[in-house]
């Protein structure tokens, strides 16, 4: 018999949390009380309900290319600050991993890709409206070297020196695709020679699954050089770099879109608008991306 009162209390609490099955006490609560799980247990001593209801907590899920990790973390925090009650859940990985997850049924509101190919896959699967994707920044590639530059690399030509340990993004990753495009451009340039690509690829010791892994291996000094985004080199200022000339480089355009089945369509539209706004573009610029002028 001793145990009874807490049990009754618990049942009352559960009923209260269920909303429609309202007991007199539960009925006097504002609807937002259901959002605070701890509140119903304290029913007997609950203070009078506050007149201002908290905004309903909502989660905006953003799938973004690994290279956007730093910039989108900051954008997410800013977005949360101006939208009370909203939390931005960020999922960073290689764009190709994210697009596969989405086509296999993962649920998200936003997809920000490092290339058009992965966004097009979603459009082809009707996961984003065909006219929705907007380019929101451009990026370029750069050669990154460890702080101590163990192999003493000075020029792009040095990358083909035998025994060089080179780390690239895998060719399934946008950064890897861009790298191969650049190498194809170099092959046509007399300064590098027709066998430049073959000789450089012979020095590759690992094809990483996203561009941040390339950066990590170079930061740790395990590789003599890697090819990553200009933005990555700005996010990791201790790294040395070798520029890739503009005529050989690619202009990587990143598209962003709200998904057709976004659980939070209005918030998703707001987020895209924020990324394209002057504030959002300023954050992207800070992290080394080239904003797209409106």
């Amino acid at each position, binding site marked *: 018999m001793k145990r009874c009162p807490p049990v009754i209390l618990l049942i009352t609490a559960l009923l209260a949390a269920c909303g429609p099955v309202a007991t007199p006490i539960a009925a006097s609560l504002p609807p937002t009380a259901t959002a605070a799980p701890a509140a119903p247990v304290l029913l007997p001593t609950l203070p009078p309900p506050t007149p201002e209801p908290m905004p309903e907590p909502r989660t905006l899920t953003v799938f973004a290319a690994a290279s956007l990790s730093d910039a989108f973390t900051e954008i997410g925090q800013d977005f949360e600050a101006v939208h009370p009650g909203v939390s931005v859940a960020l999922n960073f990985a290689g764009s190709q991993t994210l697009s596969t997850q989405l086509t296999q049924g993962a649920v998200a509101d936003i997809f920000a890709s490092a290339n058009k190919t992965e966004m097009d896959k979603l459009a082809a699967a009707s996961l984003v409206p065909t006219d929705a994707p907007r380019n929101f920044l451009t990026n370029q590639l750069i050669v990154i070297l460890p702080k101590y530059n163990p192999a003493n690399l000075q020029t792009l030509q040095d990358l083909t020196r035998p025994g060089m340990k080179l780390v690239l993004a895998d060719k399934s990753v946008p950064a890897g695709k861009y790298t191969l495009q650049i190498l194809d451009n170099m092959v046509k340039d007399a300064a590098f020679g027709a066998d430049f690509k073959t000789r450089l690829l012979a020095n590759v010791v*690992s094809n990483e699954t996203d561009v941040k892994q390339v950066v990590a291996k170079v930061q*740790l000094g395990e*590789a003599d050089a890697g090819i990553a985004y200009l933005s990555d080199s700005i996010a990791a200022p201790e790294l040395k770099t070798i520029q890739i000339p503009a005529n050989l480089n690619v202009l990587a355009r990143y598209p962003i879109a709200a998904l057709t089945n976004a659980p939070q369509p209005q918030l998703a539209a707001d987020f895209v608008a924020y990324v394209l706004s002057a504030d959002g573009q300023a954050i992207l610029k800070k992290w080394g991306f080239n904003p797209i002028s409106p």
Partner: protein
Amino acid sequence: MRRSLRQLAFNQYSGWVFILPSLVLIGLLGLPLLALVWRAIGKDFFNNALSPTAIAALKLSLLTSTVSVLIALAAGTPLAYILARWKFHGKTALELLIDLPVVLPPSVAGLALLIAFGRQGVFGIWLNRIGITLPFTTAAVVMAQTFVSAPLFVRSAHVGFAGIDKQLEEAATVEGANEWQMFRYIMVPLAGRAFLTGFILTWTRALGEFGATIMFAGNLIGKTQTMPLAIYLGFERGLGVAVALSVMLVVVSIILLGVMRRLERRSTVIMREV
């Protein structure tokens, strides 16, 4: 007393209390594997399974996991023997060290290996001076696999040695057996079953190693791209090769576990007859 499932379900209403929750777990474990096989069946299966990427990954996985399990056998057996037979200071700490890789996330193992044996690593920097660089090599794959899988063998062999009747050991000592003879003629034959279990568990774990490998050894076809890595990248390139390789790993694992079951049962019979 044993009851048949049918009896439980129909004669006793309460039988469902056991069956329904079990079905949830069985479904969770079984359905994904069923779906994988379902997807794999088709005319492209052999094309995918025999693609150069898949073959290279298969060869590399077989090679590295075999080397890993042999290292575990050669170094793990004496270690398990020491743990089971000798008393010494710091034994508990040593046992903890051996149990740790089993519970650690493989990504921690990969990072630790990189920080220890990487080119700029705490010990790797010395290796580098004598011309040995481990990251991004097949040796690094073996190290990653051994790190995560060998403890399973040591644990298993330890249990096997510890389970041997003390009277047998005493009798051998009385007969004048030295440590080697004890090990060779008493302990190893009697702990055979535990060896086998450990051997197969270690092998399957090494075959499946992913996280530590990708961090410490990187990903290069034919050199460091084992089956789990190829599956991960296949996942990104198009599911065909990934699904085919996954099914191959599932089948190999089922065969190994089946062999283990069978041999275990047989050795139990032998033990009883002894």
